[in-house]
């Protein structure tokens, strides 16, 4: 098992989690829109996962940087910056008093984020398969070499 494969396996798992968390937030918002839950529950559920999402995203971004995977890092860096900015301005949490006014904006924001994570997901899958296949081919090649010799 190479470091590369572990990295991509980790990134595969965490992108799955990110997609899940964003989808969960979206579901909370649309439940609120259709009056299935009240704003207090909705905002506390969303706010409970926001920090987890940010942290995971930041860790993933850092992992790409440390393993010198420039392309995925550059894709993720602006989002990380945006998250940090929101966090510094204390705007990362949903405001329960204004949630209905912001509902459409918040939904759109999370839709875009969901699309972004999906894109990341595709990249991850591709790179994961690539890495795995290359690894096996390498091993196969080694095998072949040892046999022929």
């Amino acid at each position: 098992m190479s470091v590369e494969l572990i990295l991509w396996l980790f990134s595969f798992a965490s992108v799955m989690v990110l997609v899940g968390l964003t989808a969960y937030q979206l579901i909370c918002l649309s439940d609120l829109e259709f009056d299935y839950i009240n704003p207090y529950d909705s905002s506390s559920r969303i706010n409970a996962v926001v920090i987890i999402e940010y942290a995971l995203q930041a860790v993933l971004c850092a992992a790409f940087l440390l393993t010198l995977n420039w392309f995925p890092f550059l894709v993720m860096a602006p989002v990380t910056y945006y998250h940090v900015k929101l966090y510094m301005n204390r705007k990362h949490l949903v405001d329960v008093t204004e949630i209905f006014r912001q509902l459409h904006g918040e939904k759109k924001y999370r839709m875009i984020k969901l699309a972004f994570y999906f894109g990341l997901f595709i990249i991850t899958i591709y790179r994961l398969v690539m890495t795995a296949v290359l690894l096996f081919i390498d091993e196969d090649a080694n095998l072949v070499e040892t046999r022929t010799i």
Partner: protein
Amino acid sequence: MHPPTGNERLPGRPVSGFVPGSAAAAGPPPFAAGAPLMRPGAAAPFAPPTQQPGVPPPLAGASPAAPFGAAPPAAMGGYRGPPPPQGPFGTGPPPQGPFATASPPQGPFATASPPQGPFAKAPPPQGPFAAAPPSQGPFAAGPPSQGPFAAGPPSQGPFATAPPPFRHPPSLGQPQSPTGSGMPAPTYVRPPPVQSQPPPVQGYYPGVPSSNPQFPMSRPAYQPPMQTMPPPPMGPPSSYSNQPAYPTSGPPMGTLQSLVEDFQSLSVSSAPGSLDPGVDVKGLPRPLDGDEEPAKVFEAYPLNCHPRYFRLTTHTIPASQSLVSRWHLPLGAVVHPLAESPDGEEVPVVNFGSAGVIRCRRCRTYINPYATFADAGRKWRCNLCTLLNDVPGEYFCALDASGRRYDTDQRPELSKGTVEFVAPTEYMVRPPMPPSYFFLIDVSVSAVRSGLLEVVAKTIKSCLDDLLGFPRTQIGFLTFDSTLHFHNFKSSLSQPQMMVVADLDDVFLPLPDDLLVNLVDSRHVVESFLDSLPNMFHDNVNVESALGPALKAAFMVMGQIGGKLLVFQSTLPSLGIGRLRLRGDDVRAYGTDKEHILRVPEDPFYKQMAAEFTKNQIAVDIFSFSDKYCDIASLGSLAKYTGGQVYHYPSFQATTHGEKLKHELSRDLTRETAWESVMRIRCGKGVRFTTYHGHFMLRSTDLLALPAVDSDKAFAMQLSLEETLMTTQAVYFQVALLYTSSSGERRIRVHTAAAPVVTDLSEMYRQADTGAIVSLLARIAVENSLSDKLDSVRQQLQLKLVRSLKEYRNLYVVQHRIGGRLIYPESLRYLPLYILAICKSLALRGGYADVSLDERCAAGFSMMILPARRLLNFIYPSLYRLDEVLTMEPGRIDGSLKRLPLTLQCLDTAGLYLLDDGFTFLVWLGRMLPPELVNDILGVSLANFPDLSKIQLRECNNYHSRNFMTVLRTLREKDFSCYQLPRVVRQGEQPREGFLLLSNLVEDQMAGTSSYMDWILQIHRQTQSS
């Protein structure tokens, strides 16, 4: 009209037992006992119209009338379906209400013409009712009257149909002509929009064929006034050259008439090169009569709730999206659910008993006057979603010929737009809460020094008897500085016990209960506490204020019950959670993108706390007294999301402001309040309320949570169209407020209103309601100022005005060459001035130096809850000249107060003026005013009293002073919700004159703002440029 209506009620009750099958047997006795004339109408539902001639023997004398007598009820039956298309104003479904109510009384007219005498005398107030007789009266008079009948129904509008009966009955022709001519010519000639007649009606009139030949003969009766109509005041007469064509074709007349009625114009052209701008400053429209409630709407739609409860920005609903996009002003409504009704118009209370509250199964609309009944009264059709619902057995009542229930007049929910239902237990999540008051009083050094504690304690003590919900009222107090002081009011104690909690990080309650106690049980303890409160802290030198922890503690005490939390804050919160920084003194922030941050809460703690409060049914009222910055923006958000109110007394001193605080605090404590309430507005298919503005918290997309709401709070909301094309004729709105009254009863207050759907932009302009538009625009502007620069907020307002006037101009400018004129609809003639006034209002005017941040925010919070009338007076205050009034007899004073335009030119140096904006009185003393008069009023010699800011006006023993106080009292009595504090300023006394008076003269040019005349010129230029 009234006696016959009374007769009609008599048969109403017995009829409720009617079974269709036994109608013939059961029918006669009650009617014989009542008015025999009722019979044709009453019997109609049970017998086909063709049998009518044989049924009523009492009418045999008027045999030609018999078939006609039966016809109109049958025609009414036609109204059961969807309402017929409408003419511009009076023809929608609502007039059919009066139609229906008026039809039985027409019996007398059918047999005898004399009853028309009083009728002829009273037409103007009876506007809508006058519409009914034409269909009946003429028939009685015999064949000649069929002419107007044939012509009548097609020409709808109540006023339009009214004249014919006055003209035609031969016996009455002469005496009635004055009445006829008294009617305004333009309305008299309203064109007959042919389509407005419901098709089925035709078939029911047996007399139609014979009346046809008379049709052309009856037309000329209409035409003379048409042709003598005065040409519109402006525009070349040649544009009406096709006028003769109008009498033959209906609809175009509407355009002609609308031109006559609507548009007004101002000449703003100036001769090139001249300095004179060409505007007659005196001729500019000014709202010197205050708010104009759209009373016309209420007359045309008598089944609607009164406009004081519900006002649409334009009493029409545009039929298409494209029409909405051309209406650049906000489309929405201002709702004042608990507006105080004048004596004699109390809201009727309805208890459905075992039937339960009658509501639509699908859309949950409450039963209302616009609901129609079908299937002999066993079903009712919801007017919002058109679903057919079952009528509960207990609520069943038979229908008369017109499809109207016999008991309509006895049931307020079927005859009045505003009713209150007693809600059964399904409407409670817990037993109705007792009214409870919790006082959170800052006792730090500034509160002690200003004398605040004494005023507050005395006022609360004097209000103890009047607190709402007498035997169940709960009361509690918590005082705080750098520590929290809890007070134990256990009824067995003789003196209250004080417990101090110094741990601000982890607040806990020292006692499980007895902090919020029943007032009756612990009255003596509470009284002794209030007596000792000022002394208890009178040598307190603590400067800190731990508001955040105190709020948490109050939440723990009140959380179980809910109620009202009154916060008396006199410094910036400085300790514990929720402490605030000094901000707002940063000049550089103004004009940048960061400017608005000063106006939003700094610490999310306050918003979160507000959300928790609302959840637990606690409303917060903020009384703030600081002489320095105390961040009203943050504190106010507590009130904003809990349905509360912000009172701001900058630099409070008990001697000067004490009276104001006393009045407003006692008003707050004793006004009728609705507790733990929620409000929802339903509206018919195709439209939807999107945004809400006011003090509340949204609990779902359209449910406003209001822990406490009272008669001083109004709400505004904006509408949007969901469908691209509206197919209905009218849209109905229903405001429902579910609340617990102070007496512990769960009630639902329901206001219902209808508005016609129109396809014509000019009709929307005609029905526009300036008060509601300004109210909504002001709230939107204040809300925008929380996320935008003041400058751009003002620009947005101006842009809206310009766009709407440009659109209006485009409607007319092509036909009429009105180049150098600003044209505007009559209904919006004050709009430019009011928008200028909003831009110059305390909340939005100028920049950093013009208004202190706290005052700006406090004014913003006030503007968000003010009802339309008070808002208009706030932004365009009333100015009166008093020096002449003061020498009059006291009895004549009220009538002789005349409002003046708000401009410096109105101020005479030898005059004494009073400016009333609903919150303060400003007394302006002219320089040349006789010193005796000044001394009389002030009670001191002006020369010896240089600092007018400290002066207090009280009644002195002389004629002028007594009169002066009478004036102030008269003005205060117009509105009890606020106590205007008098402030005196002398002419030329800078800088006080500047920021007290001159900044309120909204028609004048101030630093960086335009005068009224410049404003009009500016608007005109912008409407012309494409």
